[in-house]
């Protein structure tokens, strides 16, 4: 059933019990798609608010530290929902999506977005409490702008997977 050119590992994933179940169940697949969209909204929506606060666009009455601290648990919740549902969707369609250019681009963008998060939190973000109401350091504003661009690109590229 899978393309003979598909690598053995991908074929094995694609033929696994979980993948076959998700693929063949009439209800599981669309339910997972719904969770995936909701997870993306929660994660990207809260990330955008934190990024825009760092850029000094909104919530100027609250410190960047407060906005980041209070919204981060929601971001993680959205991330977990997105990752689990997205992982199951990917496994189910791994045979046909393996060669999809937009999927590969999305995974690459996710990797870059993740590296951006790790670097930002390991460096500039550590001093966030000291920024106070003042303008965030240039490195923080660069990381926030990159984050907005990267997550926007992840959403756009992700939407195109379904069409190609």
């Amino acid at each position: 059933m899978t393309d003979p050119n598909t690598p053995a590992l991908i074929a094995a994933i694609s033929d696994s019990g979980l993948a076959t179940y998700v693929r063949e169940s009439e209800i599981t697949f669309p339910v997972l798609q719904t969770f995936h969209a909701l997870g993306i909204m929660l994660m990207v929506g809260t990330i955008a608010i934190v990024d825009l606060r760092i850029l000094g666009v909104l919530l100027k009455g609250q410190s960047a530290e407060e906005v980041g601290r209070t919204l981060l648990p929601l971001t993680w919740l959205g991330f977990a929902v997105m990752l689990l549902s997205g992982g199951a969707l990917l496994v189910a369609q791994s045979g046909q999506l393996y060669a999809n250019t937009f999927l590969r681009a999305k995974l690459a963008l996710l990797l870059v977005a993740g590296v951006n998060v790790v670097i930002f939190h390991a460096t500039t973000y550590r001093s966030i409490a000291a920024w106070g109401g003042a303008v965030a350091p240039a490195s923080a504003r660069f990381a926030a702008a990159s984050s907005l661009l990267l997550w926007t690109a992840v959403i756009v590229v992700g939407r195109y997977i379904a069409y190609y």
Partner: protein
Amino acid sequence: MADLVTSLFDALGRSPPGLFLAASTPAFAAVQSIHLIGLAGVGGAVVALDLAVLGVVFRGADITRVARGLFGFFLVALVLTVTSGLLLVSAGPQKYLLNALFGPKLLVLALALALHLLIYPGIVRPAPAARVELARPFAAASLVAWFSVAVIGRWIGLI
């Protein structure tokens, strides 16, 4: 009323953007992406404010300031979502007119908007704690309503 809706949808379908989007899959997917990005913004702003009113996030903060600080972002995201949504409808008006979930989605959307905006009169002026308490049921209902809008909206494309 039904005739009015039908002729409005027909006009959308015959409009230049409607004809263009109906013929171009990449352009349609691009508008869907914008719709999803707008939704993420609306969802983020709604969740942040409603949960702040409910005392889950921004604890101890001045709710009035939080509401004001998020309102512009909410409006921009809403305009993005509604505009892209109208464009998506214009690409295939019949499909949406006949979709059993499209009407319910618009109804729940109207309810969600009303509930979310009803929170503000209670808290936009520096508000005594009692007024924030008063806004809490609206915040809870708003969360449920927006969640339903997103879920029903996703299923429009699935049924």
